[in-house]
């Protein structure tokens, strides 16, 4: 019978991994942060008691850990890591070459967004959270969360429009 940590890992690690990797863009940093998060859960087993939404709570912890990591890193380190950002495998592999290219371009476009917009876009698109939930999770006013999503999405659309139109027309 899996213990509580295993249950938490199986239930939430994929989402936490995707969120952290999208924020940090570096797999090694993502691993460190994910491990720190589970060490915290192991040391404070009662930390999740009373939480209504485990996933949202863990995403908030992950976001805070990523912010702390950004603050610890120097600008030079961040620039160095940004060089390998496109190598970060944000999305699952696919056999469809069009989809593969779209995912590669999408990962690169996400990397060009400011981290605060990237966080909102990720939580909205791939976690399916409402703006209310996102605002609460990130500690933002509702309007700020919505506007960050809108700005981020506009940039993605602008960047990916040619490829998106090509894929869409190719399928029609």
């Amino acid at each position: 019978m899996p213990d509580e940590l295993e249950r938490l890992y199986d239930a939430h690690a994929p989402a936490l991994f995707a969120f952290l990797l999208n924020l940090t863009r570096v797999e090694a940093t993502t691993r460190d942060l994910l491990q720190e998060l589970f060490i915290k859960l192991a040391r404070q087993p009662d930390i999740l008691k009373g939480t209504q939404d485990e996933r949202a709570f863990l995403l908030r912890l992950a976001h805070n850990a990523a912010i702390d990591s950004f603050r610890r890193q120097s600008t030079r380190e961040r620039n160095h890591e940004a060089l390998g950002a496109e190598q970060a495998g944000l999305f699952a592999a696919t056999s469809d070459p069009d989809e593969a290219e779209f995912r590669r371009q999408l990962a690169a476009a996400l990397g060009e967004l400011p981290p605060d917009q990237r966080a909102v876009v990720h939580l909205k698109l791939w976690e399916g959270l409402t703006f209310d939930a996102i605002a609460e999770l990130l500690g933002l006013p509702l309007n700020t969360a919505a506007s960050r999503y809108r700005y981020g999405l506009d940039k993605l659309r602008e960047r990916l429009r040619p490829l998106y139109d090509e894929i869409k027309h190719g399928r029609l």
Partner: protein
Amino acid sequence: MTRSNMDDFEQQLRRQTPAPPPANWRAEILEAARQSRTGLQPVPERTEKPAHVRAQTAYLAPASNTIGTGGWSSEIQPAFGAPAAPAGDRLQTCPTLLVRLREWLWPHPAAWASLAAVWIVLFSVQRQTETAIQSEMIALRAAPEEVLEAFAQRQMATERLLAGLDFEIPTMDRLKPVRRHPIASPPLMLLAT
């Protein structure tokens, strides 16, 4: 781009499945979390090992029973069961002792409790010393009044003694002022030249 296109675009983005974490992470991360829960070393497996860990644990490399999953902190673990260092090889033994001492002290609850106890003892000693110093200061503050009183009594006794004598005490007014000699005028011969 129309509203419907925008929605299509969002849907297209949503369809992109994020990659799962590498499969081998599960065992490693859960093991590290369990170790931290049981009071062993915190196991933040960093991608780069700190220099002091690399330097001090290099000799532990042959130990095959280190706890953990290969993280740098697992190398700090003492090599229990590893072959003992050769007798007389102090360079080997000394770092082992240091590592074991560090492993015992950090972050052992007993060590921290002892440290806290020592701190409390030092604090109480300091408080007592401060109290003693304060009482001495109070005593010193009282001293000048006694000194002044003794001085006044001595002055009165001196006046009484002087009043009994039958001679006139010279005062400053009756002293002759010291006459200063004028500077001698230069010889006229020198002026003439």
